[in-house]
């Protein structure tokens, strides 16, 4: 047990030992508990007044020896000094909380810390794995072995082959074809429309209404060239009020 859990330096007999080991306490409550245990009575019967006295003496001596005393020890000392005077003075029934209540709280805290400290010691003294009881050093272990099942469909296979074949074919550069109306198509279309429309009509009216975007631009361009061609052949008359004005056409000789 001493291997694992070295009990706090029990409340030392000699004062100098107390002072030298200031660092071995974990805060004022820890020190108070060690002092309380030095009274060698049940914590329930402890004299808080005597305990306060012991603590204040301890801190005073530590300071005399110019040992550095951490702030929380000094705060506790100040509080205990107040508690001490309150306990000694005639009781003021209006004071709340009463010094007795403060003393009781301190006692309860010390009991709880002591209980947990004992519990820790008993816990560490149990039969521990690797110290008192031992396990199998090299168990076989339980294993879940994953068996890989590869999955692919016939479609995956054929699609993959298609891709291979495509990659292997001689590279053919295909200029992607933009949506266009060819001159031939425009000529054909314009001639048919001229048979229907008798009076002057704007070139744009000859275009199918559902053409839009690049296709409409292409249709206008090819229809314009087609109109010039038909005019050259004498099969259509053209008129325009001025530059960039609408272009009108009608069948020649109507």
């Amino acid at each position, binding site marked *: 047990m001493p*291997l*694992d*859990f*070295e009990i*706090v330096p029990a409340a030392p007999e000699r004062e100098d030992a107390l002072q030298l080991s200031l660092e071995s306490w*974990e*805060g*004022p*409550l*820890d020190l108070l508990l060690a002092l309380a245990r030095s009274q060698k009575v049940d914590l329930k019967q402890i004299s808080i007044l005597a305990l306060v006295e012991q603590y204040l003496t301890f801190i005073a001596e530590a300071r005399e020896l110019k040992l550095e005393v951490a702030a*929380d020890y000094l705060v506790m000392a100040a509080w205990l000094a107040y508690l001490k005077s309150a306990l000694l003075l005639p009781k003021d029934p209006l004071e709340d909380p009463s010094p007795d*209540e403060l003393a*009781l*709280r301190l006692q*309860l*805290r010390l*009991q*709880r*810390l002591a*209980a*947990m*400290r*004992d*519990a*820790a*010691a*008993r*816990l*560490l003294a*149990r*039969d*521990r*794995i*690797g*110290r*008192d*009881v*031992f*396990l*199998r050093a090299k*168990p*076989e*272990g*339980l294993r879940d072995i994953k068996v890989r099942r590869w999955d692919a469909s016939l479609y995956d296979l054929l699609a993959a082959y298609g891709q291979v074949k495509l990659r292997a074919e001689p590279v053919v550069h295909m200029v992607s074809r933009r949506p266009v109306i060819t001159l031939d198509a425009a000529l054909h279309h314009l001639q048919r429309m001229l048979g229907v429309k008798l009076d002057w009509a704007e070139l744009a009216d000859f275009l199918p209404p559902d053409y839009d975007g690049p296709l409409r631009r292409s249709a206008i361009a090819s229809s314009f060239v087609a109109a010039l061609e038909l005019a050259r052949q004498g099969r259509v008359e053209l008129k325009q009020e001025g530059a960039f004005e609408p272009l009108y056409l009608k069948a020649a000789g109507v």
Partner: protein
Amino acid sequence: MIDDLERAIEAMIFASDEPLDARQVAGRLGDQMTPGQVKAIIETIAQRHAGSGIELVERGGHWHFQTPADLAHLLRRERDDPRKLSRAAAEVLAIIAYHEPVSRAEIEAIRGVQTSKGTLDVLMEAEWVMPAGRREVPGRPLIYKTTDAFLQHFGLTSRKDLPGIEDLRAAGLLDPVDLAFEEAMGELDLVKDGEEA
């Protein structure tokens, strides 16, 4: 003649590199048995090994084989160096075990000092302590509890096995100071009343 199911369960627990519970054993057997049936068989196996050099023990519902503690002197070797705990870590571990789930502030209220970051880390690294959600109070502090590995390491069948836990509870030493204070004041009043009567 030991029956096949008993042999199988014995081998499984013996071969496993971590303690198994009845549900895990039942699962590996293809769920033909209920965990309750498995547990009954495990107890038969434990009975068979009782008093031998190998014991089958239960820790937090999980079972494993280990050597009996009374043979420690023969088995302990110099290289065996169980994790040495600082006093602070041992205290924090005890507070968590006896009060769980418990927040860091509650641990500090009992110890009267701040808990250094390393202390909880050491306990979590040892896998003896784990976070157990948050307390639904302002600030929603993390709360901690002990693990199955804690029960295993310290040879506890369950948390009820914690040394002296019933006595501590009965004495109110696991209650917060405020609660204990209210009760103590109540008793004082009673005594005064008694005096006056």
